[in-house]
């Protein structure tokens, strides 16, 4: 086990990057699922939910198949860019992002669905394109869901274990985030103390994320809640 500070830094790097990278994707997916009608929507919905249903180990395994040098994505990355995400923090981030995505999409979708369409219509008659109405009305009004989604995603990211260890293994300094360190400690007789210490850090991190997001929601929601 590498030093505590290093583990925490890595966990924040992985969780933060995964959350930020997911945000736009999740919001787009949430918008499409909330507001568009098209055939195959249920299929898209199901694909987004997959990482939630399938055990993390299987998700990790599928990621491994895809990103391994012989895999479809990994092959391209390796041949064209000469990079590999295996055993790297980038790989851990991919695993965390994939696992966090369904939670983020769900929270955001609920909030988007709760936005009154008549306000979007008002924006349109005032000259706003569909996109501007989305960016200036739908998105800001759905902010509580965006923040909730981000917190859920971040919490899930910094708690992600199964997919990460299956996909990129436990490489201290590269992929050994808090959960992986906790797992390693749990495997050892007498590792309890270390487990508690690491778990306490985990909990504190997400508590901070929680408090920050509640404050953001409150700030963002100053004007809202009545037409």
């Amino acid at each position, binding site marked *: *086990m590498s030093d505590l500070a290093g583990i925490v830094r890595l966990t924040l790097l992985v969780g933060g990057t995964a959350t930020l990278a997911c945000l736009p994707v999740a919001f787009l997916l949430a918008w499409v699922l909330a507001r568009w009608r098209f055939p195959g929507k249920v299929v898209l919905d199901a694909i987004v939910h997959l990482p939630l249903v399938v055990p993390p180990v299987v998700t990790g*395994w599928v990621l*491994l*198949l895809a990103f*391994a*040098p*012989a*895999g479809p994505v990994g092959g391209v990355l390796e041949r064209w860019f000469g990079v590999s995400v*295996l*055993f790297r923090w980038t790989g851990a981030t991919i695993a965390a992002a994939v696992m966090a995505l369904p939670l983020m999409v769900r929270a955001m979708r609920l909030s988007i669905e709760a936005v009154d369409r008549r306000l979007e219509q008002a924006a349109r008659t005032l000259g706003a394109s569909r996109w501007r109405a989305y960016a200036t009305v739908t998105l800001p009004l759905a902010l509580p869901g965006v923040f909730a989604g981000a917190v859920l995603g971040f919490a899930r990211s910094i708690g992600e274990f199964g997919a990460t*260890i*299956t996909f*990129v*293994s*436990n*490489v*201290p300094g590269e992929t050994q985030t808090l959960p992986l360190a906790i*797992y*390693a*400690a*749990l*495997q*050892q*007789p*007498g590792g309890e103390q270390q487990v508690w210490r690491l778990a306490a850090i985990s909990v504190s991190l997400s508590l901070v994320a929680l408090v920050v997001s509640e404050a953001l929601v409150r700030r963002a929601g100053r004007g809202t809640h009545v037409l």
Partner: protein
Amino acid sequence: QRAAPTVLAAASMQEAMNDAADAWARAGHARPVLASAASSALARQIEAGAPADLFVSADAEWMDALQRRNLLAPGSRAIVARGRLVVVAPPGTASLNGKRGASLARVLGAGPLAMADPASVPAGRYGQQALTRMGAWDAVAPRVVRAENVRAALALVERGAAPYGIVYATDARASTRVRVVGAFPPNSHAPIVYPLARLARSRNPSAESFRRYLLSSTGQAILARRGFLTR
């Protein structure tokens, strides 16, 4: 017919124990209830007072820990199986025979070396001991990727994510995607043993019968068919 005993078996022993339980049931006994998980998880369940009868561990250290806390029935601990540690690589890879020290390190350290986490999984611990004994660990260590368990390490080699991996012979045996390119000498690491014991809390008389059955020549033959070395 007496009530079935509850047997806690390390995940890597699960299939072999299943076979044994089936055979035991065919012989007219109540089929044991098998609970499997990582040895550490099972040991913690025992520490917590879980109502079980037998424990088959893949990790002698956890068995030691339980023994120190007087959670095992005195005199019931025995070795039920042994294992061997091998190096696997994709088919077509040259054999490592005769390589030691720097030359071994050069080959294994060329790419990521997949093995179970030495900090927590016995297979990894044995691997680290063997490589250290052979003078290659320090050079290889930075390239080691620590998988959650032996099967995951094997999968990394099967999928081309790592050119070499260190796994048990039992795992390597059934995979068509890898070939064994070398076996560690048994004396290069602590003996690979799967200890068995009855729990001090066990009140089920059939538990002792099943324990004896596993250690009997019939039981041992069943384990051998799954690739374990027997006593």
